[in-house]
């Protein structure tokens, strides 16, 4: 394990009956960064996070987290990590301040440190005005701030966040990410799962999971520049016809409609992709304006998960 790795997994596998939720996962998460898990629902993000904090036993493989062997040393690990569940898991019939105090005590905070951390967290996550509110009455964004405050009270070195933003609005998501970067600046390592591209793009590094398999990993820029295809933007007056026409060709990996525009992913071994797309459409009697554009993270996602998506069929 390299000195700067916080998480290192080798061949991590978890089966539920016949379903392989996580399939021979190798993972290395460097210290002091935001590391993202990007993947659709059911891709094994939550299972992986639960395996890494010892909540689930691996069927095969092993992991070291903060130098602790998991699951054998999960108990020692729990003092040093913070975990935010996908579903709000604080107590609805307790007040904000009661919830925080409870969690702080569970983590062994007491006396001056307890008071100091409570004050800091209430301020940092803008909970001051809400301390007497019952958690069940909070809005989605407020709940999320409370959950993050609770997960960070004991100043963990590693924070595991399981789809923390899946239930909140875009502004709240932006605020939440600002809070995450503030934590990283303080030295915390963050592992966060998401299915939002814009969030994935904000991570220092990223692992794309698909049906339990790690299909790509690296910095978002690296992933985009190393993409195994070229992207052609097509504008036309008959976008549905364009879609039908292009979907039939084998050298085209994927077509996505964005309003009147189409984003066409073309296999890298095709020469002159722009001309080829244009001529294909001309033969079908369709006018179009075509140009090559920079790949986005979504393009990366589409390409690396394409095989299993075909296997899954539509939907």
């Amino acid at each position, binding site marked *: 394990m390299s000195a700067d790795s916080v998480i290192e997994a080798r061949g991590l596998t978890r089966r539920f009956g016949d379903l392989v939720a996580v399939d021979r996962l190798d993972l290395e998460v460097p210290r002091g960064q935001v590391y993202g898990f990007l993947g659709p629902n059911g891709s094994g993000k939550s299972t992986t996070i639960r395996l890494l*904090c010892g*909540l689930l036993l691996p069927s095969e493989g092993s992991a070291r987290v903060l130098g602790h062997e998991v699951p054998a040393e999960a108990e020692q690990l729990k*003092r040093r990590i913070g975990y935010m569940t996908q579903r709000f898991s604080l107590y*609805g019939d307790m007040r904000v301040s009661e919830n925080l105090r409870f969690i702080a005590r569970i983590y*062994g905070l007491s006396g001056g440190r307890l008071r100091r951390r409570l004050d800091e967290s209430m301020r940092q996550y803008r909970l001051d005005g809400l301390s007497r509110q019952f958690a069940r009455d909070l809005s989605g964004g407020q709940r999320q701030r409370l959950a993050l405050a*609770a997960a960070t009270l004991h100043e963990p070195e590693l924070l595991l966040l399981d789809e923390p933003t899946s239930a909140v609005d875009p502004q709240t998501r932006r605020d939440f990410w600002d809070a995450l970067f503030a934590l990283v600046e303080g030295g915390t390592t963050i592992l966060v799962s998401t299915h939002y591209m814009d969030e994935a793009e904000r991570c220092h590094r990223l692992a794309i999971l698909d049906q339990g398999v790690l299909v790509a990993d690296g910095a978002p820029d690296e992933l985009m520049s190393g993409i195994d295809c070229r992207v052609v933007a097509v504008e036309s007056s008959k976008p549905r016809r364009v879609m039908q026409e292009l979907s039939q060709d084998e050298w085209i990996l994927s077509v996505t409609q964005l309003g009147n525009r189409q984003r066409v992913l073309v296999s890298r071994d095709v020469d002159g992709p722009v001309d080829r797309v244009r001529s294909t459409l001309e033969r079908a009697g369709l006018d179009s304006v075509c140009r090559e554009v920079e790949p986005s993270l979504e393009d990366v996602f589409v390409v690396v998960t394409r095989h299993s998506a075909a296997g899954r069929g539509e939907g």
Partner: protein
Amino acid sequence: MAALQRLLAILYKEVLYLGRDRLTFGMIFGIPVMQIILFGYAINTDVRELRAAVADQAGTALSRQLLAELEASQVLRIDSRAASGDELQLMLDTGQIHVGVLIPPDFGRRLQQGERPAVQLLVDGSDPIILSTARTLTSMPFEFDTRARQERAPPLFEVRNFYNPERRSSVFVVPGLIGVILTMTMVMFTAVAVVREREGGNLELLINTPVSSLELMIGKILPYVLIGLIQVSLITGLGALLFHVPVNGSLGNVYLASLLFIASNLGLGLMISTLVGTQFQAIQLTFFFFLPSILLSGFMFPFDGMPLAARWIAEGLPLTHFVRLIRGIMLRGADLVELWPEVLALLGFFVLTMGAAVLRFHKRLD
């Protein structure tokens, strides 16, 4: 027609749901089957073969003849002997026997003179059913010689009713009621308390903290121990105030016995919580356990009237042991030490259920 279709859709969904909730499905059959077996076989108010001991201080052929006839009547099952009336009373106090037969040294003369009853029956009158069964003996004929018995002779037996001389049923019911109420509340409270956190998702957060399984469990049950003790005080206090139910033993013993019983019920509640997924299932399982407890423990019907199989089941229920303990302490003034087998049974039950709960409860989701 559309209304009918919607109704059928709801109906279909409901049946689908029921079929998939195996526990509920089991209850649909389990409850009636259990009820009919319990009520049909186990419940028998026609009690025979009361446990009895004899102190035969006469030791004559005549006294032996009387004992033989007593046994032949099948009302008593004489399985031990005592030297004196005091020893019989001690056996009554500790609950070993329900009836003591005291044949005085002048038994023969009393019979001949016919001025006062010749034999004393010392009866544990705390249970009215046992008392009335014992009373049937007073009409038993006993031909001790060829001479016809005098007219207007006193009865052969003098029945001495211990523990509940006024024959008030509240005196008998209230101590057992402590056990019944504790069974209901303690098992359900703990089972639901844990399952509620699992259902609400709180448990996933808790098991990811440094809190240990044992800390979590003990922390969860301690408040309920206190609640249980408050309930004990309430029932005992109201029993004394409203129905003059005595506490003949020490109050300390009442609380100790209750504490033991509370612990074993909380252990059971925790164990149930590790077996079920929803609060509804927890309540169902509690009920499934509560029913035989009430019917078989001796709280409602005399233990001695039940068939052997029912008595074996009853021995596995903590309420059976607690009912014996608390009646012994409150009504017969017995000491916890004298009732050690029941204490041991409750302790065993607690260790087993709590052990199973701790073993089954992992700080994991799989």
